[in-house]
């Protein structure tokens, strides 16, 4: 885990002071709401339908038990006893008073957390692979590189007023667990001639015009990374469109000028900025990397496991993933109980997860972009005890990557941008498919719901995606099939005319019934869709 030194702490403390000053000036009427808005957004504070929402950064989704407990404390003291984990691996609180926001920031600064750049037209929280440091397939832990990027991007003076928000993901495995190709910039760590470096992708994104990123550089050495990113961002800051908010993301710029031309401009800029001494010395990457050293795994941890409890066995098969260290496992804690709100956790549940991390997981937790929590390093011998403790607080749902493991945005229940309610629909779908045996029979099926075209619920990347729209004052839901945010990245296609809330649940059932009829061998839903195409599904839905 990264630990702040005096510099990191001074910067975060200064931010608390700055934001307190800004809130005071706003409340005193020295600033208009229009002037205050970008300032509060740069600090993750949104004005929603009913209250302010505060989004706290969880850099690359990693936190320790002390930080997790603080989130529980914030939920109890300033919110209504729960928090909502987001698709950027952050957490947001939906019932915040503006006047409390500076105090919340002061409390979280004490445990090395902040809300810096969790919103606004700037470089957002850096996301990463939730299995970092635990997965066998990574070439290195991606988080030290993500931390380097976090520091470089924090209060970057040139890139704090970009045309639009800017999202960066860092991964280090071929299996993409972070939707890296759907980011403004995606970084994949790769080895070349024994040297670790970064393959750079640019121009991906969701929103109303979803695009898959282009590879723009096959290798950037660690010593050049900041200069290269500086060049990428400068070209975007200068030439990204500012005339239309819906065309302002970098994906549109790259689409309009072409990836080759963007690459050429970046290379030209890189050649210039590389001379400026922007890159930290290798010692800085080494300093950070040392903080992410593997925990003290027992070399001889037992690997046998008693599977006699059938419910436990089901959870093992569904939510527990292999670890690079024999005798250890990666535990996924589902925040998707049937009928619950995807990504929500109560303060008590947050405390239990913190306790388990401290006792069993070398004091580490991860937030996933699918709105679940990971306990990354659990001894196989402790899995039963962990499961028992999770089950006691309703956190043992064995549905990872199944149809009820739904990503959903907050939707019209909270969000001022939404056209439709995502949460009740997610609950209805989960209830329709509640039978665990039926879910497992359907297999991996990533279902994602957005309550408006901004696509916070990643509907374009769902094997099944749902987009809520407003049709003459009535909520209407479009259905999409065939998207993926993983290494087999693809964008979903709309099936046809939209549905009512109940209608879309029925339509999904027709889709899954069709899949069961036409699937071959061990084919996943999305593989079947890719093989047979849209027609059989369309026929079943509308025919």
């Amino acid at each position, binding site marked *: 885990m990264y630990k702040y*030194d005096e*510099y*990191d702490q*001074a*910067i975060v403390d*200064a931010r608390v*002071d*700055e934001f307190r*000053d*800004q809130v005071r*000036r706003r409340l005193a009427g*020295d600033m208009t709401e229009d*002037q205050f808005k*970008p*300032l509060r957004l740069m600090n993750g504070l949104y004005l929603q339908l009913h209250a302010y929402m505060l989004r706290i950064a969880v850099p690359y989704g990693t936190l320790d038990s002390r930080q997790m407990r603080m989130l529980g404390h914030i939920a109890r003291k300033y919110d209504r006893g729960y928090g909502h984990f987001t698709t950027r691996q952050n957490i947001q609180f939906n019932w915040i008073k503006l006047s409390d926001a500076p105090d919340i920031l002061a409390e979280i600064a004490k445990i090395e957390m902040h809300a810096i750049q969790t919103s606004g*037209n700037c470089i957002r929280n850096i996301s990463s692979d939730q299995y970092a440091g635990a997965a066998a397939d990574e070439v290195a832990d991606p988080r030290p590189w993500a931390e380097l990027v976090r*520091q*470089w991007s*924090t*209060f*970057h*003076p*040139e*890139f*704090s*007023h*970009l*045309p639009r928000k800017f999202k960066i993901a860092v991964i280090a495995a071929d299996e993409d667990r972070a939707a890296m190709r759907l980011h403004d910039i995606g970084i994949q760590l790769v080895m070349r001639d024994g040297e670790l470096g970064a393959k750079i992708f640019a121009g991906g994104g969701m929103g109303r015009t979803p695009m898959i990123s282009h590879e723009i550089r096959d290798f950037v050495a660690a010593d050049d990374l*900041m200069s290269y990113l500086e060049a990428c961002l*400068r070209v975007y*800051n*200068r030439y990204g469109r*500012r005339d239309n908010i819906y065309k302002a993301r970098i994906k549109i710029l790259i689409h309009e000028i072409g990836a080759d031309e963007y690459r050429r401009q970046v290379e030209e800029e890189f050649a*210039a*900025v590389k001379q*400026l*001494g*922007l890159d*930290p*010395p290798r*010692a*800085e990457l080494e*300093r950070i990397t040392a903080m992410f050293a593997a925990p003290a795994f027992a070399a001889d941890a037992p690997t046998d496991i008693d599977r006699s409890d059938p419910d436990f066995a089901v959870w093992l098969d569904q939510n527990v993933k292999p670890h690079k260290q024999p005798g250890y496992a990666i535990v996924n804690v589902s925040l998707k109980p049937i009928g619950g709100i995807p990504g929500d956790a109560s303060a008590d549940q947050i405390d239990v997860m913190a306790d388990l991390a401290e006792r069993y997981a070398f004091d580490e937790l991860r937030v996933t972009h699918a709105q679940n929590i990971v306990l990354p390093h659990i001894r196989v011998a402790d899995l039963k005890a962990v499961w028992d403790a999770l089950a006691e607080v309703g956190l043992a749902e064995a549905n990872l990557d199944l149809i009820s493991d739904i990503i959903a945005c907050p939707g019209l229940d909270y969000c001022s941008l939404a056209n439709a309610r995502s949460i009740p629909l997610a609950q209805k779908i989960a209830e329709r498919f509640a039978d665990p045996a039926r879910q497992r029979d359907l297999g991996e099926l990533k279902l994602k719901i957005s309550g408006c075209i901004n696509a916070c619920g990643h509907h374009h990347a769902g094997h099944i995606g749902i987009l809520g729209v407003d049709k003459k004052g009535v909520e209407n839901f479009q259905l999409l099939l065939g998207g993926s945010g993983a290494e087999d990245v693809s964008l979903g296609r709309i099936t046809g005319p939209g549905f009512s809330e109940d209608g879309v649940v029925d339509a999904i059932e027709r889709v899954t019934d069709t899949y069961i009829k036409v699937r071959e061998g061990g084919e996943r839903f999305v593989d079947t869709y890719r093989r047979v195409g849209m027609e059989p599904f369309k026929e079943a839905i509308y025919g």
Partner: protein
Amino acid sequence: MADGFDPDQTTMTDSGGGVQLRFRDDEVNEEPAVTLDSFLIGQSNATAVRIEPGDDARALLPSLDRIALIEVSFPSFRDGRGYSVARILREAGYTGELRASGDVLVDQVPLMRRCGFDSFAPEAPIDGDTLRRALDRYDFHYQRAADASVPVWKRRHG
């Protein structure tokens, strides 16, 4: 003192092209700034140039040693292109006055200072106390920019 801002030594006045803040001790350039197009096609005797957000500041690079004032226009505080303009000019070695004018807000001044702006002509006057707090607030910065601030990684590793 992150920026060395001292209200007694820094000009806070509304004279000289609407300049309220100036972090230079040379004389204010009173010559009206010409547009970039005018400068490039004929008025290259001018020593003051105005850059609009859509202009390519690099067109000025061959002439920087003849220019005493570059005024960068911010029609909206949300439009951040001028920050890159400032960086590009300073990186090219421009040492003359670099003025941010227009919709420039107090919370933006520290970022603009880091990008190389050394004078400010805001549409709405900036409150001196708020500005002093803003400029003094951050003792450390993570990244190298156009100012003299030593990046945190350099402080860590020398």
